[in-house]
């Protein structure tokens, strides 16, 4: 018990003192996960919207597949990316293994299906509402998709948040392709795992607390944005 309270005390002093190692780890975590979420949005929004509005054979299958991919186990993604980018792999020549870029790739693969699948649901509902009006106005398909994405922007913010939550919290993929190398690829989750196993609870706790605060404040910000959107009947 004494250990625990000592650990808590140390954790807070690390946070309040803005410990350099701590800051470095947090900054890398944010950089990797935000990059991955941005890339996933770039792919996932248009992909989800496209599946929502186009009628093609196998569309149901695509939707089910996308939903299934939302639950991809991070370690499996990590393993597959590892095989692709390790020296013997097809992308070995790019020298990506154990780099932040590798972690971004792995998290992008993890998050894109989440964003695409949730986007499909959101956009499909709105498409039902707008479809006849758009057909009446003879709106070109690419404008239909852009308009649907823009008009569901507040719902898609929540979708993005779900993706970010997944990225920032996962360990399995980043530890395999990043290697948890100090000052290079160490992020919050891998550091927590390592420090806990070493028995250094203070740093692990400090990171855990930051991770929680981060999740809470991002959620609060999105909640605030969404309720102001609802007041404007934009959501």
């Amino acid at each position: 018990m004494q250990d625990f309270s000592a650990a808590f005390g140390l954790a807070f002093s690390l946070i309040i003192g803005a410990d350099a190692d701590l800051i470095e780890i947090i900054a890398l975590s944010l950089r990797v996960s935000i990059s991955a979420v941005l890339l996933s949005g770039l792919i996932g929004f248009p992909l989800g919207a496209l599946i929502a509005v186009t009628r093609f054979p196998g569309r149901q299958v695509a939707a089910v597949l996308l939903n299934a991919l939302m639950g991809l186990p991070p370690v499996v993604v990590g393993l597959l990316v590892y095989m692709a980018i390790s020296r013997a792999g097809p992308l070995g020549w790019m020298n990506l293994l154990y780099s932040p870029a590798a972690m971004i790739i792995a998290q992008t693969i993890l998050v894109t299906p989440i964003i695409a699948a949730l986007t499909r649901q959101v956009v499909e509902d709105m498409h039902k509402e707008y479809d006849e009006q758009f057909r009446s106005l003879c709106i070109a398909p690419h404008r239909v998709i852009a308009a649907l994405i823009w008009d569901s922007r507040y719902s898609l913010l929540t979708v993005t948040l779900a993706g970010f939550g997944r990225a920032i919290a996962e360990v399995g993929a980043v530890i395999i392709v990043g290697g948890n190398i100090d000052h290079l690829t160490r992020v919050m989750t891998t550091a927590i795992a390592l420090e806990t196993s070493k028995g250094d609870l203070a740093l692990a706790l400090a990171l855990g607390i930051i991770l929680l605060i981060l999740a809470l404040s991002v959620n609060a910000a999105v909640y605030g944005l969404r309720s102001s959107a609802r007041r404007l009947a934009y959501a």
Partner: protein
Amino acid sequence: MPASLLLPLEVDDLCYRIGPDLLLDKVSVAIENTGISVIMGPNGAGKSLFLRLIHGLLEPSAGEIRWAGRSLGPDTRRRQALVFQKPVLMRRSVAANIDFVLKPQGGRYRQRRDEVLHEAGLYRLRNQAARLLSGGEQQRLALARALATNPDVLLLDEPCASIDSAATLRIENLLRQTRERGVKIILVTHDTGQARRLADDMLFMHNGRLLEHGPAAEFFAAPSSEQARAFLDGKIVI
């Protein structure tokens, strides 16, 4: 009054069925190129289906539809605008709803947008969220957006069904101005008063069939079908 280039509208033996139900039964009509044609009839008569069919949003089960001799397609639809009974407004400001249809036309769309909003009496509300407007204002915005596309033909599905009489009056005035500009208007309503105020010619539908078509004065003076007579007398028509 200038004449619309897309007219006349010729409909031959138009049928529409869903499963076993014959919802439109051999509707044939020719609609001329000026003025306001009003389609009246009780609920479920097939008025909305007819409007969607002639606009090209639904495929006929049988029969033919021609605008100025041409069959339906994106070309004809692009020159028409349909205002739906329940306005579909985008989750944007009033001005952005107009911009959405003006942008593809290119050029200085802001000026045109402001004109359109002034005309509809919505300029003062231009920065408001479209979906927070009152029912009458929403209908006016939907109408303004339709007019912004510069249609040759304006189709309206009960635009005043759920708004009060002052708001109705404003819409009717807008429609009269539009008629003076030479836009052909086909208006669905089940409000006899509105039909009397606006119609140049009258169509009366009942049970998926077109029972009457003729000049408004004649129709109101002496409707030839029993159903239309009962409808005008305010009786419940089934």
